[in-house]
């Protein structure tokens, strides 16, 4: 049995302006197949990736915001959002999509995936990881 590693994907870029956000999401989904202990963090402009109501019809790009709601299916259910980054940008948790996962052990009860954390809390989570991937 190979050792399970703690992997964290850190997202710090806005969606659409660059390809980082979508590339990161693809890597997270691919990586989820390896049954590691995966968590994802959104900080700085990365918090913009999770806003609800995205409609890309007018810019002719794929709207990948619905894909974040599939993360729960991939058992990626530790999603950290940096509180200070949200506040600086005039956003609150209400402006973000509601991300959930279903707990099979509790009759598929829906649980929140997003954890709103302070910089200090995020710093603790980061320190606890084996590998960090930056996007």
């Amino acid at each position: 049995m190979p050792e399970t590693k703690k992997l964290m994907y850190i997202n710090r870029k806005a969606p659409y302006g660059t390809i980082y956000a979508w590339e990161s999401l693809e890597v997270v989904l691919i990586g989820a197949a390896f049954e590691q202990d995966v968590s994802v963090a959104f900080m700085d402009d990365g918090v913009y990736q999770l806003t609800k109501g995205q409609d890309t019809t007018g810019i002719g790009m794929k709207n990948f915001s619905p894909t974040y709601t599939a993360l729960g299916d991939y058992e990626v259910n530790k999603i950290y959002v940096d509180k200070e980054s949200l506040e600086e940008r005039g956003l609150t948790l209400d402006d973000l999509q509601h991300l959930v996962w279903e707990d099979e052990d509790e009759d598929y009860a829906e649980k929140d995936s997003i954890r709103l954390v302070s910089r200090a809390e995020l710093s603790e989570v980061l320190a606890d990881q084996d590998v960090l991937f930056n996007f």
Partner: protein
Amino acid sequence: MLHLVNKSPHDGCNLDTATSIMKDGDSLLLIEDGVYGAIKAGKAASLLEGRSVSVLGPDLAARGISEDKLVDGITIVDYAGFVDMVAASDNVQSWL
């Protein structure tokens, strides 16, 4: 002169530079990730005070920013409006 900003206000200093160099009568158009600068409750909103500012609607929609979140007095334009603004300006400065 028309100033274009296409980067997030938190990514580099484009919006700071553009707004500090703008003269009376100049306009600013926020496009792509630049539209994040137009959020009223955001840290960068104060940079837009007293400026003539427009944002590109399709870029707002793509990013899930609704009109009620924007700085008061801002104009939303579509691609045709973008072209009109460029055509109406004697010069365009793109803060890439």
